[in-house]
């Protein structure tokens, strides 16, 4: 007990835990506000916000899946090399010989599929409850950007196993970029603006005129660094705006009904 007291009174302990466990309104609020991780969460949660039937918890689950994907993704990066020579072999190695490799890869794969689903369900719930209406209209726009980023993350990750399915799916997917207005060489006004197969938007995506080793590297960097960074920035804005626009939306209060 004396030791415990000594630890509690030490400089280090008091630097990390600034408030006691006193169960008062003020102390509980301070515990949240003074913690960098907890302060992202509101100090007070309205009763309706805990109603799963209303929110479905889809936004939170999406964020949880993003965290799962970040962690398992970093773990996969220890074995995966994004070059045409090794990518497929490394994927096979992960799935067959790396201890817990299949678990890590499957977690990443299934969480990725699930995240696309939960993002859409979250959007559907927000639409059904009218939570896109003012003052939350800007956050709807941020949400749409996050949806697009989620789909791009999903698409870019699809190429990385470097098998036939991946290569042809990305071939088909990026062929659509040929028809981009103005920026694609087969799109409206593309040819007039000097777009050719080796200088249009598809060329930048692929790093060549067809899906090849440069494409694998570009998609890898985009999938592991660029897109998650952009998505994280928009997520910060998204969560911050939820708080600033009056917290999570709820059913209309009984007074107005």
């Amino acid at each position: 007990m004396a030791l415990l007291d000594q630890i509690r009174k030490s400089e280090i302990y008091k630097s990390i835990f600034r408030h006691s466990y006193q169960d008062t309104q003020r102390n509980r609020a301070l515990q949240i506000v003074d913690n960098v991780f907890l302060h992202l969460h509101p100090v007070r949660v309205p009763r309706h916000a805990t109603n799963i039937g209303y929110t479905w918890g889809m936004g939170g689950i999406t964020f949880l899946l993003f965290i799962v994907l970040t962690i398992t993704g970093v773990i996969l990066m220890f074995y995966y090399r994004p070059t045409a020579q090794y990518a497929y072999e490394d994927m096979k190695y992960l799935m067959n010989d790396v201890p817990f490799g299949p678990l890590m890869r499957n977690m990443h794969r299934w969480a990725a599929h699930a995240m696309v689903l939960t993002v859409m369900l979250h959007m559907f719930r927000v639409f059904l409850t009218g939570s896109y209406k003012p003052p939350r209209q800007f956050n709807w726009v941020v949400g749409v950007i996050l949806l697009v980023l989620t789909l791009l993350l999903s698409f870019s990750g699809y190429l990385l196993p470097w098998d036939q399915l991946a290569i042809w799916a990305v071939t088909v997917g990026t062929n659509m970029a040929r028809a981009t207005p103005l920026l694609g060489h087969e799109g409206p006004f593309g040819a007039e603006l000097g777009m050719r197969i080796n200088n249009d938007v598809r060329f930048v995506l692929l790093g060549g005129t067809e899906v090849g080793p440069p494409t694998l590297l570009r998609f890898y960097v985009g999938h592991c660094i660029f897109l998650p960074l952009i998505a994280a920035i928009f997520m910060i804005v998204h969560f911050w705006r939820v708080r600033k626009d009056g917290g999570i939306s709820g059913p209309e209060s009984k007074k107005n009904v």
Partner: protein
Amino acid sequence: MADQVAPDLENSNVPAAPAPPATPGAAPAPSQISQTALPRKPKQDRPPEQDPGIWRMNRRNLLSVAGWMGFFGFILASTVGALRYMFPRVLFEPPTKFKAGFPQDFVIGEVSEKYKDEKRVWIVREKDGFYALISICTHLGCTPRWLPGESKFKCPCHGSGFYKTGINFEGPAPRPLERAQIGLTDNGEIEIDRSIKFLYEKNEWAKEGSFLPFLG
């Protein structure tokens, strides 16, 4: 700096001073104050802080503007550089122009898949000559397969089918396969350039280069 500005302000607050400082609301610019309040001196004697110059800019403004121009110029140039960076100068892809052997090596009526894997081109020999079809499905870009038994090209992705001529007849493909330029080199070898295409729907299959007449 402050010391040099101070006398100027005092001057403008003197009751006997000319009109401009006395009018409330319309606060005149400092440069105007100095010009009206101070007796006009030859330009070289005026302190540079009060001299707006031809661009109406004093020394401090100039440094500030130059600083910001430098900053945004750097950002702009870096952005342009980063964008250009994404367009490689050298591509490690097979050349689009290649020699495909002598015409006598091909059998009349057969579709040669010899160059399909490497160059994505079929070479078709008919009685009266050759044509080269690019083996990219016109639906979404997969590689169809030549089925000799059914005498058609069939795409495994979404089931598009093409006749031996390249004309589409089933599945979602919206237009026929594209033909590549085909010709003979000086020593009689077939030469194909798949960067030059001939599109049926633009009536380009009648053009020279889309078909290599050969009897032999």
